[in-house]
């Protein structure tokens, strides 16, 4: 098998953040690496101890920071390293994504998955799938627009800045 594959150039490369638990998905992602499975390079992982730790604020902040898609992943039910964290997360996100849907956020931009430490292949596949899906959806312009307005830094750019050396 040849090591070098032509990378397909897309018009748009989505920014995706994955919030994953340390024990299952992070380890599963490591396994994907150890197994040299290939997947899309658009995802940035933020490691947390447990899906129970993943509050909805993190997801909102990710969008505010410019994410086009968010992925939340942890242990399968009954596999949680902390026994119950993922059950709490599941219940929370069941309702939270409905809220996002209600205010008009396309919930295809927020994906949830159980990926165990053994499921390196599932992880690789998941990342590629989610990347393709979000790429299909295009940039999250709705959010980006209001987010840029809330931070009128760019508008101020043309004015020359005083320079201060630290």
């Amino acid at each position: 098998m040849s090591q070098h594959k032509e990378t397909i150039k897309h018009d748009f490369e989505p920014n995706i953040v994955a919030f994953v638990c340390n024990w299952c998905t992070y380890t599963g992602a490591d396994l994907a690496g150890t197994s040299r499975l290939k997947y899309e390079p658009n995802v940035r992982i933020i490691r947390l101890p447990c899906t129970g730790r993943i509050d909805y604020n993190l997801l909102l902040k990710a969008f505010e920071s410019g994410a086009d898609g968010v992925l939340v992943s942890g242990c399968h039910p009954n596999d949680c390293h902390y026994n119950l964290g993922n059950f709490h997360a599941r219940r929370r996100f069941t309702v939270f994504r409905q809220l996002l849907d209600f205010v008009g956020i396309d919930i295809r931009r927020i994906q949830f998955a159980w990926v165990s430490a053994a499921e390196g292949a599932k992880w690789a596949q998941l990342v590629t799938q989610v990347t393709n899906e979000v790429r299909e959806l295009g940039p999250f312009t709705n959010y980006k627009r209001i987010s840029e307005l809330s931070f009128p830094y760019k508008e101020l750019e043309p004015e020359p800045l005083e320079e201060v050396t630290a």
Partner: protein
Amino acid sequence: METLQNIAQGLLERGDVSMVIGYTPGTIPGKTKTIFARTPEAAQKLTFNENCVNNLSIYLTRQYGNIGEKPVALVVKACDARTVNVLIQENQLKREQVYLIAVPCNGVKDEHGVEQGKCKSCAQRVPKDYDALAGETPAPVEIDPTLRFKALEQFDAMSPDERWEFWMKEFEKCVKCYACRQACPLCYCERCITDKTTPRWIEPDTSTAANLSWHITRAFHLAGRCIGCGECERACHQNIPLGLLNRKMAKEVFDNFGYRAGESAEAKPVFADFRYDDKEEFIR
């Protein structure tokens, strides 16, 4: 049949309660004020009519410091009593600290005579649990309980972008006065997440993005807790339909977990709990 004033007077005369929190006429027709009646004489000023919109249970939260050694009597409509249940559920109050004077309610109106949204789908004329009833037990009525979710149907037909458009227009108006929070009897936090600065999860400015993150947070923090008293929406002078967000949350919690906030003071709060077989179709 005992009148509200008599009940209150008796309680204060006997010294059973430190005060009776109720309604008294306001300065503008159609508005009522809160009264903290501490003497039997003051009890005569108590009133109840269709303009008694406020949910007085907010005065039971700790920040108001009304709860002391002696119980406090509170005039409650059925919806207000559900808030009391949530406060008990969430350790903010003990049942024995409050004496509930129930008032039969056929729906309330604001000062412009507009019937409150919550009343249209409410069949509960008196609370499930109370200590005294001021007035007659009213005849039961039958109202389809799903009516409370009726207003949400308009959104089903909308595309995400249309919903987005709708809400951004609403949130754009928000001035971040936090009246919605302050008026909510369940927003009893010592320090609201939005006032927390390390880190600042919600920017305090009034940009639409910052307003969106506030309103999402507010709605989600009340998910499974809000009993739908409508005080937030009433306090919002910018006319943002906050009740829709709350109702959507209530619907999701009800549909997914069969839970309705405020039904029982003993239930475990829905988001402090889970079931092994909670649905998870959305998880890959």
